[in-house]
């Protein structure tokens, strides 16, 4: 399906290419092979851990991906953290104080965040915090520190400053989603018999809300949130483009424009792997949180 995105030849040969060059390169890359054969070759190589060489950078795709992964994973992690932290906090607050003016304000304002496209929010944040106020950087990761093959921006001041705006941009939508989910699940749990029974036992509101209600709320929240984490990584495409965040999303967009087929294919494989991993983690978390599943598993 990559053939529809464009022709890589054009980018690989310069302005001074002749038609003979085009034919030679096309042949060399195997682009004239039947589509299925191309796909088969890709799969055969991928199984051996060989994802090919980037047309654009002339480096092994695996190396390029590994170089870019930390940036995206850190960004996704921080925005997921942001989304979950604030989503759960605000969700719990709005569920407990279901009628207050502040609750209505939070609910309405959070909707503003999902009523504008992500890229616009990112650009507006840059305009406000980088250009007008000059508080935070407008692009990039800041300084990074190397730990093994992993580069992290979370250990330097400039790295931390740099992640704030992209993380908010990326996490805003998920935060709203989680908040609403927590709110509705928690309202339901708060009406359940065991919460009423806990009240009847004289437990404090604090214990009821945070020990009994929240934990039960989290069971369904974990599934949806977990599955949504996949979309954090995907939406990183937009955020990384806006903030010039050197992650795999930006790599993907560059690759689409350059028609760097090996990188695009590898990115899609990466997303699939993420899917499997996320599903696995969600299942594990589920078992940790919900004892009913633990028993079934043991049997």
């Amino acid at each position, binding site marked *: 399906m990559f053939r529809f995105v464009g022709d*890589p030849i054009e980018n690989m040969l310069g302005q001074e290419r002749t038609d003979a060059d085009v034919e030679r390169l096309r042949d060399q890359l195997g682009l004239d092979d039947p589509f299925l054969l191309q796909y088969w070759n890709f799969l055969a190589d991928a199984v051996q851990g060989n994802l090919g060489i980037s047309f654009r950078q002339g480096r092994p795709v695996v190396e390029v991906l590994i170089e870019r992964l930390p940036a995206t994973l850190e960004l996704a992690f921080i925005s997921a953290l942001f989304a979950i932290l604030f989503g759960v906090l605000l969700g719990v607050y709005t569920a407990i104080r279901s009628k207050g003016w502040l609750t209505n304000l939070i609910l309405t304002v959070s909707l503003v965040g999902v009523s504008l496209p992500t890229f616009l929010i990112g650009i507006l944040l840059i305009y406000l915090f980088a250009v007008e106020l000059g508080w935070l950087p407008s692009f990039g990761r800041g300084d990074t520190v190397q730990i093994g093959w992993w580069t992290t921006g979370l250990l330097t001041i400039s790295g931390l400053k740099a992640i704030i705006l992209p993380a908010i941009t990326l996490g805003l939508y998920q935060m709203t989603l989680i908040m609403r989910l927590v709110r509705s699940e928690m309202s339901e749990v708060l009406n359940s018999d065991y919460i009423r029974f806990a009240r009847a036992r004289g437990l404090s509101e604090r214990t009821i809300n945070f020990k009994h209600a929240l934990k039960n709320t989290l069971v369904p929240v974990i599934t949806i949130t977990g599955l949504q984490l996949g979309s954090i990584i995907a939406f990183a495409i937009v955020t990384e483009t806006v903030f010039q965040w050197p992650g795999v999303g930006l790599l993907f967009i560059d690759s689409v424009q350059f028609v760097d087929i090996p990188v695009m294919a590898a990115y899609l494989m990466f997303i699939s792997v993420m899917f499997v991993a996320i599903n696995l983690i969600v299942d594990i978390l589920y078992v940790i949180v919900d004892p009913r599943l633990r028993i079934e598993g043991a049997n």
Partner: protein
Amino acid sequence: MKLMTLLTSSAAVLTLAGGVSAETLNWARAGDSLTMDPHAQNEGPTHALASQIYEPLIQRDMSGKQVAALATEWGPKADDPNVWAFTLREGVTFHDGAEFDSEDVVFSFNRAMSTNSNMKELLSSVVEVRAVGKYGFEIVTDGPNPIMAANLNDIYIMDKGWSEANNAVEVQDMEGGEDTFAAKNTNGTGPYTLVSRVPDNKTVLKANPGYWGIGQFPLEITEINYTPIKNPATRVAALLSGEVDFIQDVPVQDLGRVDADANLKVVKAPQNRVIFFGLNQGDADLTTDNVDGKNPFADLRVRQAMNMAINREAIQKVVMRDQSIPAGVAMPPFVNGWTEALDSIPAGNIDDAKALMADAGYGDGFSVTLHCPNDRYINDEAICQAAVGMFAQIGITVNLDAKPKAQHFPQIGNLTTDFYMLGWGVPTYDSEYIFNFLMHTKGEKRGSWNGTRYSNPDMDAKIVSLASETDLAKRDATIGEIWSQVQEDLLYLPIHHQVLNWGMANKVETPVSPDDRARFKYFTLN
């Protein structure tokens, strides 16, 4: 990988918001270099970075003039027009301390002409290269090549010993998927050395203390941090917030804002690039039009009418915000062969155009699809969009199909577009380059970018003759003849010459080079 380790563990590389030390320049542009191997890719940003580290025999200065680099003298041999002779600079060392001599030049030219090289098209007429003593060098061509020097500006010289020691004799085979030592490491003679590099992210250069040009060039910038920033708004924001000091591609609408900023300024100059529309005038019928069995573009009157309909002034004033020079010929003004008369904007107004259309039998108009890139030229999509409105006024309904360059340009080569936008820069500053690619009948060796299906054997013969014509006056005359034929037949509808705008902090002083190449050794700071 080793280099990355070096980079990331090294100290703060990019300081935020203002506070840049006097010698460091933070540089951003839209794209990154693709590889550090100087012969693997013939592409703007790749050469832009390479040219800070590697040097050619002859280079251009900031005004576009050819000046001595690693060669101090050059020219065709008086006794044999097929041979160009060069005198090499003495006392030059590579970054690793190795001495530069003719062996390195021969090695580098052979490397640039090898199969994997992307530069070999520029040297297609070369038969042999040879060293003449330690500091002499000769190029033998298959015929007299009067403009050989113009092809050498991006042929960079590598150290033979270093390449052999590091298994980098072969050019990185990007297409075959190869990763070589030279793709990540450098050893040039240039004014800057590579400190660290993470592709698409950050590249750090430091001034070369052993540079031969110390004293000849300002060399005031001692450190360069280069970051590609893809999104235009982010790029401008980074400049406005002081995070970068120098960006090469300022969106035209933001020039005012940058210029108005107390800490920033905009420097501009005409670019060596012309933008035009190509028309399929050779086929019997068009695939994207609504006229059966006929090709409206084949009618000269239709082409003339369309040429008149393009309101170049409006495009210049509104779409380009004065950052363009309306063009009458598909040739940048720097190019040998350009005259003011050729470049004059076609006379006539909408009514004349309508009359021509009626004359040609298309009084009721027709419809056709215009293919346009949306990420290649300055405001490319907006220009096409404006043109759609202008053609509509003479009854031509144009469907606009704007796409990324990777999807757009193959259509021209594959002849699957009837009507397209193209821009052309002329690194050789000579008309022959334009004729070879755009005017010659499409064939194996020439005419690869000619999507007009125009074929004129007489003109083809003239174009081929240019390559071996040593009498420059005669050659110029032939060029003139070809151009008047091109204008008469209206192969292309020229739109404008692009104007380059560099945005920079006030402390940076530099003119703008017409090839959009920042040569930092010429930069001064105040």
